[in-house]
């Protein structure tokens, strides 16, 4: 039975799923039911150190850079419209491969071209993030964000982080204006 977290809640992954190694971070939202431009949502992941910054630009995993240099994180691809059942985008994480200097894996979702399309998360329904143990396909934890966003164009959905030797997951649900660019800058990525 998966745990449902509310905003700000956290769970100890190492305790809930002992020997957790191969993780699927599933992210989902409903496709736009109305007419107008599609919502193109993108999942990204920042591998950050203690200071909240990436060690280098290669630790920013997104649609144009799908794997980290250490092989710990792999983005499985971009879904342009949010159609289809289940996860709309997925990121694979191999926990043992995450370098020791990386303290947190920050999972974000941003709306592509939100400003030009006059879109915001408030128009997106039923967004969620879930952590699945890929070795047995068991869902460990889920966070339904639908009441935690409004007019933002970028959201930190959650983060996987080290805590006293364990891995934990925190439901963050924090929104930002400025899209992926703002979030990338905040996490120390050199954005061209």
């Amino acid at each position, binding site marked *: 039975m998966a745990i449902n977290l509310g905003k700000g809640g956290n769970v100890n992954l190492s305790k809930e799923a002992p020997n957790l190694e191969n993780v699927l971070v599933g992210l989902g939202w409903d496709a736009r039911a109305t*007419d107008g431009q599609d919502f193109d949502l993108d999942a990204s992941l920042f591998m950050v150190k203690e200071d909240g910054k990436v060690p280098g630009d290669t630790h920013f995993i997104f649609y144009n850079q799908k794997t980290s240099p250490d092989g710990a994180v792999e983005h499985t691809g971009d879904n342009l419209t949010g159609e289809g059942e289940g996860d709309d985008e997925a990121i694979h994480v191999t926990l043992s491969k995450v370098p020791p200097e990386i303290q947190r894996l920050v999972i974000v979702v941003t709306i592509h071209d939100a400003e030009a399309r006059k879109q915001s998360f408030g128009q997106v329904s039923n967004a969620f993030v879930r952590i699945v143990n890929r070795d047995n396909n068991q869902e460990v934890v889920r966070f339904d964000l639908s009441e935690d966003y409004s007019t933002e164009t970028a959201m930190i959905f959650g983060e996987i982080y080290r805590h006293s030797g364990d891995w934990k997951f925190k439901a963050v649900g924090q929104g930002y204006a400025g899209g992926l660019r703002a979030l990338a800058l905040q996490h120390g990525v050199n954005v061209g």
Partner: protein
Amino acid sequence: MDLTRGQRAKIADLVPGGQQLALGVAAEGPGLVIDFACFGLDAQGKLSDERYMTFFNQPQTPCGGVRLETPPGDAAGFAIDLGKLPASIDRLTLTAALDGAGTMSQLSRGHVRFLGPGGEVGRFAFTGGDFASERALMLLEIYRKDGIWRTCALGQGFNGGLDALVRHFGGTVAEPTPAPTPEPPKPQAPPVNLSKITLEKRGNTVSLQKKGSQAHGEILINLNWAMRSAPVKRGLFGGTRSGGIDLDIGCLFELKDGTKSVVQALGNTFGNFWGPPYIMLDADDRTGTRTEGENLRINGKHWDEIKRVLVFAFIYEGTPNWGEANAVIRLKMPEQPEIEVRLDSPDSRNPMCAIALLENDGGAIRVTKLVDYYRAHPDVDKAYGWGLQWVRGSK
């Protein structure tokens, strides 16, 4: 609180108590005709009970939780009491749909506003620039999440117009005539009908025979009048008294089970088409802009449960000058000649006119022209032996 598209808020943060509020809505653009409605949806976002679509032909939900009521200064509006809504209704979606040509990109301005006891508490404003080819919009929703009522400024819609909207809510758009109608039925223009019956003389009676054992269809009683050039505002704050006349249609009814009451805009007793008394009044024509006048509809499928209906008109505001009002009552039923009654008696003292009596005559509808003028409702009641208790009401 100013809401932008996509913004969410708790209702309790807008109005004290978070239960009773009013929504005012307006949207306008050159040449655009826009109809507003409030859909009461289930947890799946579907209109599983069509009685929970509130619009001008169905001005309130069975529970009374949503009532069509236009705040001063808005084009339409809804009085909402969330506490009255049944548990099956989880979502109220306020919609706007174009009737006729155009797209929502042609809107010059529009808003949805929240009103509490002290006036406006929130507003979602939009313009045509927010839209492209949409012809029907979901403007705003009020929804229940984990037991708490919240709102979201949606501002999204469908190029396919009202049909697409109704399909989105799980309704079927039947061809050619949906029943019960998800789309606001408009009274058809009076056909050029040589068989039209005009009841000229008082006391004339015509009996509309049942065809075989079939029930009657919809009986439409339409009131239209000539003096509608100057829109008349009314109510507590609408003090403008122009020279126009505001005419209202209504009826006294008596059901076979002995139930007796009134259907009229005054006191917001708009009736119910699908349930007793099977008589319903269109939303009150407050602006004078609706060319089709006001309609009283009787569900002929349930005529067997109705004993008698006394149709009346009264002048709510303005000088009681019937001659100038040039009012015409039309009574239409499927496959029956149209009946027309002109209110042309030169009686300028009494603002109330008993127009016609519809009686259940062994299953047939017997129509008697009355055109008797009275001072007020109780006088009509007394004259026809209805026996209701009367108190002063207002809209």
